[in-house]
């Protein structure tokens, strides 16, 4: 009504914003708080709705070669230091084998050369980091579905678990080996590949050499690097602290579709 009221209003708005201090909601960061469970129920809703909207074979967008305008930005682990990995790296991964284990008819394993001799798939896709940035690169590898077919996945299997050479975290526990899992829809998706090539070169160590699994309809943290074993399983709760992946155990959504 009056200018005085308007001034008073502006004043109270400024006052309100300075005392906003949102640390009263910091309890939401406590993983064991019961509010946290309520909020995290939205993650499973997202997973179910996206699975409904998304045909099993709907492809992530692919780009033309002109869209590769920079190297693939490395993030997370970029140089694993475990003795086992260093020994393999010293020999240019000649002794590396990718194992398929668990609920399969026959456990099989593949050397890098064997993987390279199989029918390859190349795709120029966008890698979306959970932090917010995106990077387009060409990934070349063997479709995971072909490897799973050789092993013969048993009907009871519901998840593919990925075991990796890199160790994340640290502190008192000394860190833990990276682990990831996906459902069999993602595992058998045509763009899901065991990638050994990046931008027409051999996959470098910083991006996950010798093999990184690409799950293209998910965020970057669901693209496990340095993978040495893919285990088929009826559950994924036996991994880490039970949420199904390293980052899910650290407060992130397991499915990583958004």
């Amino acid at each position, binding site marked *: 009504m009056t200018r005085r009221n308007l001034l008073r209003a502006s004043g109270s708005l400024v006052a309100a914003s300075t005392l906003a201090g949102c*640390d009263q909601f910091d309890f939401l960061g406590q993983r064991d708080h019961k509010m946290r469970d309520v909020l995290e129920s939205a993650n499973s809703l997202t997973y179910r709705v996206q699975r409904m*909207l998304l045909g099993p074979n709907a492809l992530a967008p692919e780009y033309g070669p002109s869209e590769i305008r920079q190297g693939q930005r490395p993030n997370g682990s970029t140089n694993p230091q475990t003795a086992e990995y260093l020994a393999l790296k010293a020999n240019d991964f000649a002794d590396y084998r990718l194992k398929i284990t668990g609920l399969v008819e026959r456990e099989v394993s593949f050397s890098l050369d064997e993987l390279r001799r199989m029918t390859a798939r190349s795709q120029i896709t966008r890698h979306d980091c959970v932090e917010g940035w995106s990077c387009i690169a060409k990934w070349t590898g063997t479709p995971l579905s072909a490897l799973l077919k050789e092993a013969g996945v048993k009907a009871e299997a519901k998840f593919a678990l990925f075991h990796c050479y890199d160790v994340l975290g640290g502190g008192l526990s000394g860190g833990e080996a990276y682990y990831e899992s996906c459902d069999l829809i993602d595992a058998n998706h045509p763009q899901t590949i065991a990638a050994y090539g990046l931008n027409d070169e051999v996959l470098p160590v910083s991006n996950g050499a010798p093999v990184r699994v690409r799950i293209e309809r998910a965020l970057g943290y669901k693209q496990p690097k340095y993978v040495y074993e893919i285990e088929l399983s009826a559950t994924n709760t036996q991994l880490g602290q039970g949420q199904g992946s390293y*980052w899910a155990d650290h407060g992130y959504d397991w499915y990583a579709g958004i």
Partner: protein
Amino acid sequence: MPNDIAEKQTRKSRDGLVYRQSVWTRVTHWVWAICLFFLLLTGLQIFNAHPSLYIGQQSGFGFDNSILSMSAENTENGPRGYTTVFGQKIDTTGLFGLSGPRPSVQGFPAWATIPSYRDLGTGRVVHFFFAWVFVGTMLVWLVASLVNRHLWRDVVPKGRDLRRIGQDIRDHLRLRFDHGAKYNVLQKLSYSVVLLVLFPLMVLTGLSMSPAMNAAWPWLLEVFGGRQTARTIHFAVMLLLVGFFIIHILMVVAAGPINELRSMITGWYRVKKTGAKSDE
């Protein structure tokens, strides 16, 4: 029920009260208010994980397609925070880039994020929870407002509303408000833009950042011109909504906070009989 309201209407109209806001309008209003509070503050938490905005599909590390970024640098005068907008570098120490009592390097300051400390995982959990509630409320509001005709009758501006816009702007500038039973044209315009343009734009640009949605609805990326452009639009719409919020609160206070709050809580609004005629 309608009889009940009609009866109350006649009784209360003697006191100059009209039943202005249906229960659907009131409940969705307050649910949105709570959602937007959490969406904004967790959104800033998420932004802080990579406080830069780009145009296009990807983020330029080997080339430059950034239009906004927040960063900190060591200078002769100690560490300073900077915001670079369209190539213009501005010192924003204390607010953007570097802030806090023990200065820390971060985009938005701790008081503007949930949680106050850096926790992208929690920010995302809270953000997506309220995003679902927000979208659900939008659907409830849309259906209710189509059925009870609130959308067409009260919100969408018509030709005759728009013809009064000059007068309405002059009235607002003089803080002279028309306390009619209906929204004035500036209200109709701003509510239409917020509800029918900004809210859907926010949801769609949010979905455009989802790699799974990009596979399900590839047209999203084409409409918005790439994932990073969608992220930039998501941010710009946030700024517009914050701007709307500030003006909204100022207008409520200036127009009479008790009356405005009562109508958004109980539905009953006191119309002014003197002076300006309502457009009934």
